[in-house]
């Protein structure tokens, strides 16, 4: 009888220890400090290459502008390109040839 009671007590003790350990393991961690850790942005991951990536995004600026504005942009673009080409002819160099344009038509 004594042996049975002892075994029962030990079983209950073991069950209690197991329950506490399970509770500790599954309890959501709480920070002691009210300050939350700094949220770090996920490292930028190179976009996966799918066929869909090759689809040109719609050019809202180009498709929404009235035709007259578009034509004016083309005209300005030609003028700017001529000026850039003229500068190159006056002082030919690689840098002069490939100066960046401010043309709204291509930017």
């Amino acid at each position, binding site marked *: 009888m004594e042996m049975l009671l002892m075994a029962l007590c030990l079983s209950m003790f073991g069950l209690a220890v197991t329950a506490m350990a399970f509770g500790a393991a599954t309890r959501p961690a709480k920070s002691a400090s009210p300050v939350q850790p700094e949220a770090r942005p996920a490292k930028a991951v190179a976009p996966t290459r799918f066929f869909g990536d090759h689809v040109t995004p719609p050019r809202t600026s180009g498709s929404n502008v009235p035709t007259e504005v578009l034509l004016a942009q083309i005209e300005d673009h030609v003028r700017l390109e*001529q000026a850039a080409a003229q500068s190159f002819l006056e002082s030919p160099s690689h840098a002069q040839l490939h100066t960046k344009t401010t043309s709204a038509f291509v930017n």
Partner: protein
Amino acid sequence: MAPEQPELLKGLAADDAQRILAIGTRISLRSGASLFQLGDPAERLFLVDRGLIRLTLPMQVRGRREEVVVEERSAGQTVGWSALIPPHKFTLAATAPLETEVIALPREDLRRHFAAHPTVGYQITLNLAVVIGHRLQLFQAMWLREMQRTVEKHSA
């Protein structure tokens, strides 16, 4: 004429330049008037005396044909050198965006004059080569810039 010697007549003695101008006919163009169209037979060379000439090429924009300005020529400059270069067809259209006066020089009259005055013909041909060469170099540089942008776009 414009105060400065027109580009086509540079290097000519004053009386030689006057004889060339005497061959020409003065044409007045109202604002918006067409001087020639793309593909027209090029029978006459033009010197812009006053105003402005816009040279345009047709471009398809949103399904419509639009004339896009590729070059502007002002007083003293030459328009329509296709008149002297085979196959004598205009490769651009020319219009006057404002009241403009040009001097039209017929090709055949010029040829006869050059045959009679070879040194004048030589000088004018040289001047014309400068105009054509400049156009070529300008468009070559413009084309290369466009190509560079295309390359950058494709390799981005």
